[in-house]
């Protein structure tokens, strides 16, 4: 394998790493939020992401809305779908057994994936962006870049900043953090924790919807099965970054995006999926509770 990497290849790796990282950051943050509050791992998180992509896709086609604005429609729709999913499915299973919670999300994967297939077939789609053919030239590193790439990074930064402010600075954000740190004490503060479950689940899936839209703008990768792997990787990211840690999910997502794009460049695409799990297994063998894991839930 040629390991001679030119500067421009290196820049490419970093750029694509960051772009991938953005998707992972959005996914992992949502998953992490849901885990923090409910102590549930939603393995069907990727399906909500793809569903969000479809919502943006159809909105941008039928309403002719700029896809970057259709993100907001998607956030709203998927947020509501998430709230309903929590209310109808997860709440009834919460606390019965860990296995039931895991298998429930497995069932949701089947339901959502195949429902999307039935509705929209397995055709791979892409949301067409009005800036599709605009490229930006960077003189210093002598590289051409699709404008969309820059916008995607910008949108992610904005959304994450909004999310961060919501969690760290607002009353409901405080209530969410309180619930995730100590559920019974949160109840004693007068917080309606079941409402927090619903809200966090909706917020988490809404973040996934954003990821799905951005993904579908960047690649022709919008098809029902496309969410499964990214969600699993997002979960490995939060295991590595520390279950429940907001910063961990962001740093972990970016780091993983970079690691993946360099692994693809060096080892080839075959290893793309294997890398995440190899790292995960290695970490868990050394520390069975995760890198920054809580001792016992």
């Amino acid at each position, binding site marked *: 394998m040629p390991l001679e990497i030119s500067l421009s290849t290196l820049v490419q790796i970093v750029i694509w790493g960051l772009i991938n990282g953005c998707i992972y950051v959005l996914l992992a943050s949502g998953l992490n939020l849901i885990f923090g509050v409910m102590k549930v791992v939603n393995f069907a998180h990727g399906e909500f992401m793809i569903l969000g992509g479809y919502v943006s896709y159809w909105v941008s086609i039928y309403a002719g809305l700029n896809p970057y604005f259709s993100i907001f429609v998607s956030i709203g729709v998927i947020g509501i779908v998430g709230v309903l999913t929590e209310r109808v499915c997860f709440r009834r299973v919460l606390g019965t057994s860990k296995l039931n919670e895991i298998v429930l999300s497995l069932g949701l994967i089947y339901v959502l994936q195949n429902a999307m297939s039935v509705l929209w077939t397995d055709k791979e789609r892409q949301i067409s962006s009005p800036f599709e053919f605009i490229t930006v030239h960077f003189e210093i590193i002598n590289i051409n870049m699709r404008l969309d790439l820059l916008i995607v990074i910008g949108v992610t930064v904005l959304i994450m900043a909004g999310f961060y402010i919501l969690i760290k600075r607002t009353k409901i954000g405080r209530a969410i953090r309180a619930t995730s740190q100590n559920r019974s004490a949160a109840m*004693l503060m007068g917080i309606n924790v079941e409402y927090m479950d619903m809200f966090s689940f909706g917020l988490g899936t809404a973040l996934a919807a954003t990821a799905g839209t951005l993904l579908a703008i960047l690649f022709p990768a919008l098809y029902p099965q496309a969410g499964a792997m990214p969600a699993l990787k997002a979960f490995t990211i939060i295991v590595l970054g520390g279950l429940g840690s907001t910063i961990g999910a962001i740093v972990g997502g970016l780091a993983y995006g970079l690691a993946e794009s360099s692994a693809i460049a060096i080892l080839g695409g075959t290893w793309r999926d294997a890398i995440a799990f190899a790292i995960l297994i290695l970490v868990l063998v050394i520390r069975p509770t995760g890198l920054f894991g809580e001792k016992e839930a």
Partner: protein
Amino acid sequence: MLEVDGVSASYGNVQILWNVSLNVKEGEIVTILGPNGAGKTTLVKTILGLLHPNSGSIKFFDKRIDKLPTYKIVDIGIVLVPEGREIFPKMTVYENLLLGAYTNAAEKNKDQSLETIFQIFPVLKERRKQLAQTLSGGEQQMLAIARGLMSKPKLLIMDEPSLGLAPMLVQKIFNSMREINEKGVTILLVEQNVHRALEIADRGYLLEAGKMVLSGDWNELLANEHVKKAYLGL
């Protein structure tokens, strides 16, 4: 103001409380005594709606509250400072206090409440930007009490505030309890520490093996042989 009448409660199929009754009047300090495992914590959890009684009723200002969810009970003015402090470790002291004022009514008065609280516990003012987990045990207990006060409770229930604290700190906390009471807050105090509890309480109840076995004012209880027996088996 609080009336617990014939309450029985269980965890799963394990019955913990058997026909327990007590009442608290406005402005009082009332204490529930009893050895470990007598069901004191279960009793306060039942009052707060964390556990729903199998039978009996709980009234607050003549309104039934035993079927309400916890957040509604907090909303109408009953606040519990739970056993073992139960603070939010990864938030600052200030954020912990703000969470105390989560209910809408309390939020309006939060600046004023903060001022009062910093008066009673000046150390919390110094540490307000620190993460709560970095406080010492005694400071955490003060934070827990202060957080309870932030929600402007009509009735403040404290579950073993002296647990695991050095005698000096216990003294401090009991002193602040008196101060809080003088500011018009009714207090229901759950304690193992018989002497101290009876020193500041107007009246007391003795809970033993899930049943209310005695009630009376402090010197009555203190003189009672049964209290000694329950604790020491003399």
